[in-house]
C-alpha cells in the first residue's frame, strides 16, 4: 500500500509477543484495507491466535502497535474495541440462554441503544439463518448452528473489522460452506475481515490477500495469485505410499532440487514434494522410495497452490 491508499482498517506494526523463552509472534506487520478479507495462514502453533489476541486487545504486545481505523488498540476498554468484532475459535456463548438472549447480551456490551439493539439482533438472526430458532436455547442447537451464532455474536454491533479465529475447525461440510459464504458477503458489504485458518483452500477461496505465518514470523504476504507465482516453476508431487513416510520425506529433502517435502495433504498416506522439473526428478524419487522400503501406489503432479507455497517457504507441510 502506498501513502495515497485509504487509511487501513487494521494496521499492525512490528508485533512481538513472547511467552517465556518462546517467541510466539515475531515482528509481524500487516495492514487490512476497508472491504478487504485478509487470511492469516499457518499451521497450528504458528502464532495466529496470539496475533489475533493482540489485534483484539486481549493480549498486550511486548513490542509493536495495533491500530484499528487509526485508533490504538490496547488491553484497556478503549474506543478501538467498539470497531472490532471478535469470533473466537471455540463457541463462546452462554449455552443456557436462548439465541436471541445471547445476541442481546453481546450487543449490550457495545452499549447499543435498545431499539438499535433489537433491530440489529433481528438483522443478524436473518443473516445467520436462525430467526426461526431465536427462542431456543443454544445447547439445543446443532454444532453448525452454534458456529453460525458464534459468528453472529461478533456482528451484532456492526463492526468495522471482523476477526475470525479458525471459525470452521470441527465443522461439518454443509455448515462450513455456509460460514464461508457468509464471510464472502461480509467482504462484499465493505467490512474488513481478518481470517485465520490452516486450511489452504479456505484462504484461496475467501481472501483478497494472504499472509503466511510460521513459527511466529510472517514469511510471505500477497494475493493468492502473487504467492502462487512464487512457485510458478515448481511442481507439487503427491506420492501415495505405504511405509515409513516421515523418514522418506526427510530423505527427499536431501535432494538439492527438492525445495520441500513432508507428509501432508488430507491423508496420512501421502508425501508431498515441491520440486523444480518433477519429471526429471521423479525416477530418483521412486528409486529412493524403493531403497527405503516405501511402496508407492500412485504419483500425481499438480499445479502449485498455497500449500505448495508453504511447503516451498518452510520445507514442511501446512498441517504438520
Amino acid at each position, binding site marked *: 500500500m502506498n501513502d495515497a491508499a485509504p487509511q487501513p482498517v487494521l494496521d499492525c506494526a512490528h508485533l512481538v509477543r513472547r511467552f517465556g523463552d518462546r517467541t510466539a509472534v515475531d515482528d509481524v506487520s500487516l495492514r487490512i484495507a476497508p472491504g478487504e478479507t485478509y487470511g492469516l495462514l499457518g499451521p497450528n502453533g504458528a502464532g495466529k491466535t496470539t496475533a489475533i489476541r493482540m489485534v*483484539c*486487545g*486481549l493480549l498486550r504486545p511486548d513490542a509493536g502497535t495495533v491500530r484499528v481505523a487509526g485508533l490504538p488498540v490496547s*488491553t*484497556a*476498554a*478503549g*474506543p478501538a*474495541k*467498539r470497531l*472490532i468484532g*471478535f469470533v*473466537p475459535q*471455540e*463457541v*463462546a*456463548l*452462554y*449455552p*443456557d*440462554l436462548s439465541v436471541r*438472549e445471547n445476541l442481546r*447480551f*453481546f450487543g*449490550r*456490551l*457495545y*452499549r447499543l441503544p435498545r431499539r438499535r439493539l433489537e433491530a440489529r439482533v433481528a438483522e443478524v438472526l436473518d443473516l445467520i439463518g436462525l430467526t426461526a430458532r431465536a427462542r431456543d436455547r443454544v445447547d439445543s442447537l446443532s454444532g453448525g448452528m452454534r458456529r453460525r451464532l458464534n459468528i453472529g*455474536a461478533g456482528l451484532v*454491533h456492526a463492526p468495522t473489522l471482523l476477526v475470525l479465529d479458525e471459525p470452521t475447525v470441527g465443522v461439518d461440510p454443509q455448515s462450513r460452506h455456509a460460514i464461508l459464504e457468509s464471510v464472502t458477503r461480509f467482504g462484499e458489504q465493505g467490512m474488513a475481515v481478518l481470517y485465520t485458518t490452516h486450511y489452504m483452500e479456505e484462504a484461496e477461496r475467501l481472501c483478497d490477500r494472504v499472509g503466511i505465518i510460521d513459527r511466529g514470523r510472517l514469511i510471505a504476504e500477497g494475493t493468492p495469485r502473487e504467492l502462487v507465482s512464487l512457485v510458478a516453476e515448481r511442481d507439487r508431487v503427491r506420492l501415495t505410499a505405504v511405509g515409513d513416510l516421515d523418514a522418506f520425506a526427510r530423505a527427499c529433502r536431501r535432494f538439492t532440487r527438492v525445495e520441500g517435502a513432508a507428509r501432508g495433504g488430507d491423508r496420512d498416506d501421502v508425501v508431498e514434494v515441491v520440486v523444480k522439473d518433477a519429471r526429471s526428478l521423479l525416477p530418483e524419487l521412486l528409486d529412493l522410495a524403493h531403497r527405503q522400503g516405501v511402496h508407492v501406489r500412485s504419483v500425481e503432479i499438480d499445479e502449485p497452490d498455497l500449500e505448495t507455497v508453504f511447503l516451498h517457504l518452510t520445507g514442511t507441510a501446512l498441517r504438520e
Partner: protein
Amino acid sequence: MTALAVARATVLRALRDRTALFFMVLLPVAIIVVIGITVSGFDRFRVGVVPAPRQGPVARELVADLRSDTGLRTRVFGSAGDARNALRRAELDAVVVMPAGLDEDVRSGRSVAVPVLVEPSGNAGHSAVSTVSAVVAGHAAKLQAARFAAQEAGGTFETNLDRARGVERAASPIAVRAETVDGVSEFLPLGYSYSTPTMLVLFVFVNALAGGAAIVQTRRTGVYTRVLAAPVPSRALVLGETAAYLLLALVQSVLIVGIGALAFGVSWGDPLAAAALVGVWALVGTGAGVLAGALFRTPEQVHALGPSLGITLGMLGGCMWPLALVPGWLRTVGHAVPHAWAVDAWTELLSRGGDLGAILTDLLVLLGFAVVLLTLASLALRHRLTTSDRT
C-alpha cells in the same frame, strides 16, 4: 451498563438452573424442617404418666393439668412397668405414677403422695421433678381451697372445687420470671428458631460457593474472553458477576427469612439489625463464591470441594451445634471462620432481643471478612481474565 449486562445474564442463567434452585430454596427449607423438628421440645421435660385404675375426677384433672403444662411433654402409659422401661431407655426424664384412691384420700382430708420416678444418672430428671411438683402444687392449692371453703362455708367438696376452679381462672396469675444476674443466653431458641438462622448462614455460604462453578464454566466457554474483546473493562466484568451473585445470595436469604417467619413462626428480632446481618452475610458468601470461581480450574472441582468446604466451615462456626457446647479452644478456632460471628449475631437477635448496636462487633468482623474475600476474589478473577491464554 456493561456490568449490568453481565449481571443480568448471570442471574437469568441461575434462575433457569433447576438444580441451583433446588439447592437455593428447597434443600435449605427441607433441612430447616428436619433439624427444626429434631431439636424442638428440647426445652420441655419428657414425662411419663401412669394413671391409676378406676381413677376419679380429681386424679383425672391432675393428669390433665400435667398434660397441658407447657414445660412438660407427657406420654401416658398403661402400666408402671412400661413407663419404667421407657425411663431406663432414656426416652423419659421422669415418670409420674398416679396413686390409687387419690380421690378418696383427698375428700377425706388425708395426705397424698404422688410418686415421681427418675433415673439416678438422668441430669434432667430432678429438673423434671420440680416442674411436676409445681403442677401438683397448683392442683393441690385448688383442692385445699375447696376443702377450706367446705369447712368454713359448707357445701359439697365438688361444688367448692368448681368455685375454686372459677376463682383460679378469674384471678390474675402471679407470674414468676427467672433472671440470671449478668447472665446471657449462649443458645439460639430451640426448634425452628434454631434451625432457620443457622441453615440460612450455612446454605447462603454453601450455595454461593457452588455458584463459583458457573463462573468456572463461563471462563471455560470463552465467553469472558469475548467480553473482554468488547469495550468492557475487566473490573466491570468482575463487578457484574459479583453483583449477580450478591443478588442471588440476597434473594435466597430473603426467601429463607420469609419462609422461616411465615411457615415456622420464627421471630427474626430487630428488623434493621436482621436486614444488616442478612446483607453483610450475603456479601461474605458472594466473596467466597467469586473467589472459588476464580481459583478452581473445573466446575467439577467446585462441585466436589465447595459444599464440603462450606459444610466444614459451617460445623466449625456453630451451624450444626451451638459453639457454647464445645471446648474453649474449639470455640476460638470456630471464630476464625465467619460463620461463628454470624451465628453469634443471630443468637443475640433471637435469644436476647439485641438490636443493631448489640451486634455491631459481629457485623464489623463479618464486614472485614467480606472485604477481604471480595478483594481477593476480584484480584484473582481479574488476574485470571487478563493473564492466562484461556481464561
